[in-house]
């Protein structure tokens, strides 16, 4: 899996990702040495800069199915969360699971290229507050705990998602 320069912060990277990344995704076998060298171009979060892990977060989480499993529970949690569920009225839950799984897979170094809407566009006009953003974080933290995702990996997922806040709130 190759990852190339994703310097645009905070979130345009998600839409730029498809342009910037190799189309060979998924056909090139994972290789520790190339993954490590590409991390230099992937220095987005403090976690990514400081982590000494060899394997990608995607692999340590257990791959796509493991991510999808806690995303399904996270979406269930947020649809049941009275602080924020009204924001998702009329949203296709299956599509939401797919988009969120793709994002996390992409951010965590997995073989996915999130090509959905940018975070700015996806939240335009919703006027999401910081408290609502945090409520979603809490719903996903709970989902990861319910799926026995180790606390250390949970924190690293949150670390990858945290910088999205300015792109999501007050739009």
């Amino acid at each position, binding site marked *: 899996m190759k990852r190339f320069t994703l310097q645009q*912060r*905070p979130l345009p990277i998600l839409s730029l990702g498809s342009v910037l990344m190799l189309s060979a995704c998924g056909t090139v076998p994972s290789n520790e040495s190339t993954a490590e060298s590409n991390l230099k171009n992937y220095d*987005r*979060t*403090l*976690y990514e800069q*400081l*982590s000494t892990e060899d394997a990608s977060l995607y692999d340590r989480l257990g791959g796509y199915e493991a991510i999808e499993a806690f995303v399904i529970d996270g979406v269930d949690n947020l649809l049941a969360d009275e*602080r924020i569920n009204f924001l998702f009225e009329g949203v296709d839950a299956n599509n939401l699971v797919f988009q969120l799984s793709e994002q996390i897979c992409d951010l965590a170094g997995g073989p996915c290229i999130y090509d959905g809407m940018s975070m700015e566009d996806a939240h335009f006009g919703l006027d999401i*507050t*910081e*408290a*609502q953003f*945090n*409520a979603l*974080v*809490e719903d996903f*933290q709970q989902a990861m*705990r319910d799926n026995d995702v*180790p*606390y*250390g*990996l*949970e*924190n*690293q997922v*949150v*670390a*990858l998602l*945290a*910088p999205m*806040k*300015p792109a999501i709130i007050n739009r």
Partner: protein
Amino acid sequence: MSLTRRWAEMALIPFLMTVVFSSAHAQGGRLLATGGVSQFEGAAGGGLEPWALITGYGTEDEIGGAAHYTTIHTDSYGLQSAGVKLGFFDRLELSYTRQRLSVDEDVVEATAGALVSGLEPILGAPTVQTVSGTAIDMDIFGAKLRLFGDAVYAQDSWAPQISLGVQHKRNRDFGRGVTVPYLGDVGVPALLGAADANGTDFYLTATKVFLGVPFGRNLLLSTSVRATKANAFGLLGFGREVINPLDGTLLDADDGYEYEWGFSAAMFLTPTVVLGGDYRTQSSRLEDQPVLGLLGAPDLAEEDNAYDVYLAWFPNKTLSFVAAYVDLGNLPFQADSDAVYLSLQASF
């Protein structure tokens, strides 16, 4: 009303506020523990150090707050702190805290004994005898303004969150409270050579949270620099003014600000348990005091750097508990003031 009872009642403040906060459904929208606990001067932070974070759980659209009660007990001293604070829109923190340093009888007797042995050859036997311990109360009015930065969310940046703080301290027992031979009713801070009862500290603090590192843990690092005239955090007054007690002449004085540095680290061991520690330098301007030198103890009020190591538990956003080992360094007649520190905070 006995002092013990009065402080027992102050300890009820956080409990009562817990009831109010949890019944008011006013819980703020920030993530667990991101308002810190209450440092012993009443600002949001660790045990000894203020952090750049704003108290409570209020986001940029909300008001948060906290109430705390902290007790530190060493052999001859007790330090208690109780206070309230509000955080406005994750931007401005206003706090009020009352501190009480209780001084056991043995310290007062030792001070009196030194005075008598030093002065008896000159003045003859004293007419006033000391019998009881004393307490030094201090009010601390604090404000902290978040200048810029986002400690928690800006994980794509090394830039810390930086806040500017001020703590105005008013020592209520600067010049009274303890009866000593020859001098009658005096205050411990004045006796030890402090110049003023009141002082204002200014501090800058920079705080950054590292999510997911090291070992997948969330680590908070914080540092501060403080301009202060305080002696022993103000409990022994502010500045230095040594007066010859026999003729009232000024022997020396020091009214300038000095810098004190602080360092703080805290790491989540689990989603609700934090292991942390603070280190704080002190400027020690009361050491080498000539009048106390006449009594054979020129460095009676010398200050050491202070540190603590603590475990904090955040079972929910309403309550948090801190248990710590703290060393405040040298206090008069007690070279090592290491102590157990317990704190309770209610927040919203």
